[in-house]
């Protein structure tokens, strides 16, 4: 079986106004592919609704053993991640004072 990786680009706002739409697309992709490559470079705005969609996708990927890669998060995304103390792989950052946002090095291996 060849692993398929689906590329999805989220552009515009990833907020409560569009979260449902993006969530449906991601859920669909999750069912069909072995992994998702999520291009966040064109996200203009991210709010709690958007963040929880990302977190849920991540959790699902982890549970189903699928790959999730977040590509080039835009400034709007990075800002929210900083506030939420999450690194660009959506992992918790323990200490706010350690400024380790590794830029665009975002690859996350398959579990």
């Amino acid at each position, binding site marked *: 079986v060849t692993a398929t990786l689906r590329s999805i680009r989220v552009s515009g706002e990833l907020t*409560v106004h569009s979260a449902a739409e993006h969530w449906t697309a991601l859920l669909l992709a999750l069912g069909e592919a072995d992994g998702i490559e999520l291009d966040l470079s064109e996200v203009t705005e991210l709010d*709690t609704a958007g963040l929880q969609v990302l977190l*849920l996708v991540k959790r699902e990927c982890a549970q189903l053993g699928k790959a999730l890669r977040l590509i080039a998060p835009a400034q709007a995304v990075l800002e929210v991640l900083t506030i*939420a103390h999450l690194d660009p792989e959506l*992992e918790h950052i323990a200490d*706010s004072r350690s400024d380790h946002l590794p830029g665009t090095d975002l690859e996350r291996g398959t579990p």
Partner: protein
Amino acid sequence: MTFEDEMNAALGTFVLEATELLSEMETGLLALEQDVADEESINSVFRAAHTVKGSAGLFGLEHIVRFTHVVESVLDRLRGREIPVSADLIGILLPCKDHIGILIDAVALDPLAAATSPMTAQQAESGSALLAWLEPFLHDQPGDPAAGDQTAGEGPAVPGKMHLSLRFGAESLRNGMDPLSFVRYLSTLGEVVDLTTVADLLPEPEQMDPECCYLAFEVTLSTQATVETVEDVFDFVREDSDIRVLTARSSPADYADLVASFGPQAQGIGEILVRTGAISAADLREGIRGRGLADGQEGGAVPIQRSGDAAGSATGSGLGSPASNAPGDGTGDGGLNSGPEPAAGSAGTATANVEVAASTPLRRAGDRGAGEAQTIRVDAGRLDRLVDAVGELVIAGAGAGLRASLIGDEALQTALDEVMRLVEEVRDGALQLRMVPIGTTFSRFQRIVRDVSAALGKDVELIISGGDTEVDKALVEQISDPLTHLVRNALDHGIELADVRLAAGKPARGTLRLNAFHDSGSIVIEVQDDGGGLDPDRVLAKAIERGLVESTAVLSEKDIHNLIFEPGFSTAAQVSDLSGRGVGMDVVKRNVAALRGTIDVESRPGKGTTLRIRLPLTLAIIDGFLVGVGGATFVIPLDRVVECVELPVRSQRRDCMDLRGEVLPFVRLRSLFSVEGEAQRRENVVVVEYAGTKTGLVVDTLKGEFQTVIKPLGALFGHVQGVGGSTILGNGDVALIIDVPMLVRHVST
């Protein structure tokens, strides 16, 4: 509605509310100036500043947030009794409040500019000047006794570190509240040392509602702010959310409660609490044990017991717990890779929220919310349209009534009577909607009196009474300028300097009274000072000098007093020579007259002066009394009508009659308005009263009561005296409305 429109509408509400809050703040500050120990005022001032800052933050008005934040910090110290209330401080806080008002007004004028260039150079400059003034109050001064007390006493100690547990209501996102913006805002209060985004409450994918809020945040905040300040941040969402603010002083039971409220996720939360140092593992376990015993809930205690252990090992605190329970790869993972029952977890938390809401001390906001729901903001334009429509309804109803009475169908008549009764009720209700207490206008004068008297070097106390007297909103707005004028005049020319007062045997502190009351269909507003009063001789001399009266004229004292309302009586240059007043009194009089009101003055030398404004309660509809003269119909405002009598035969050739022993002067409407036709053999007199003077109006026929919608006369008739407006009768005829005050004056002069 586009998003921008919605934002603009919301911004409009913000501006309105902020303006109200600022005036509350001003009221509070002024009250504090009178009574430095007034806790309630300190709190209300603080709350106002705080809420303005919070709402400004929601709109991203960073410049307002930054400035208000400093003001709020000072107020917070005031509230914590770290610094005393002083005249100096209030003298700085008042202009600070004004500055916030200016910034908000600028936002209201141009919301878009607020984003790009929020402040003019001048605003920025005055802002920093004010901040520099505030600076000393932000820190303890050496030798400041209050600061010493603070460290020694029990007072509300400044908690350094707080643990915040934020679970926002499921509907928060849909309601436009983004939890992240609250979290973002927390960093303005202090440093967010640690934050864990708790994703455990996210449901299974198929149950996911992307517009529902599932995320929770556990925050460690290091701040100088009080718990209350931090709690207040969440005022807007508190009702549906579970927000807890815990400090080192909170009891272990509170922490245990928090942990338990997370249900199946309790373990993860326990770990977070211990890891961030909010509470030690031992204390937490202690708290949980106590809680478990108290509740008798074996099930609740068991998973939590584990949590303590797990946390203990994760932090390596050496409690001797088996390390196997702890997640292998450190701290955060528990949050994201959590157990298999998240859906159940979210349900469990929902129930927990309900019971917790009842037991947390954060219900204040809910109570306040209920209070707010009792009033709604209505666009004044809509209200005007309603009143207009009701006015037309009254006219149409009166028309139908006239027709019905012609037909003589009794059942129809009865039905119409009922309709008219209801229409009247609706009319009264609609007019009632426009009524506002005049107190809000009055209280603005506290500040004016304070500032003006300080500038003049006088000590003046403002006493307000009758503030709950209700009056039409349109009137309130239009009377405010003339009133300001009168108040300034009273301060400037009425009340004397302290030494003059003492020499005259009066208390050094002057008194200015603002009073309002209802009086037979009018509202009366009095501005009363206890100053020197008008000097009739000087007023008369001035009037003669100005050519207003002949030097030989013999005038009563009242006439002399009224000279101050004459145009050209005084100009600014001469005012200070005069012991009375005079600046633009003619303008005040004109403004009042435009509102169909009158103004008169009462003054006693050495004792003071009272200016009395009399205004109709509303501008739109009056109950009228219809009278006929020849072919014409006139309306006399019913509230002016005292009685109707037949004109005695022997008075027919005179201008006055005997009314039960009183002399009643009268005017013949026929000759006054040049109505054609001969007088009837029997004429009637309608006795009207205004400001204590009775006058008769001679008419042909009395036609009874009629609800009248006042239509203003066109500019063409603006100069016509004795007519206050017109109305349309049910049969389509036009009737003129008699201006009783004007007629009464016409007769008495």
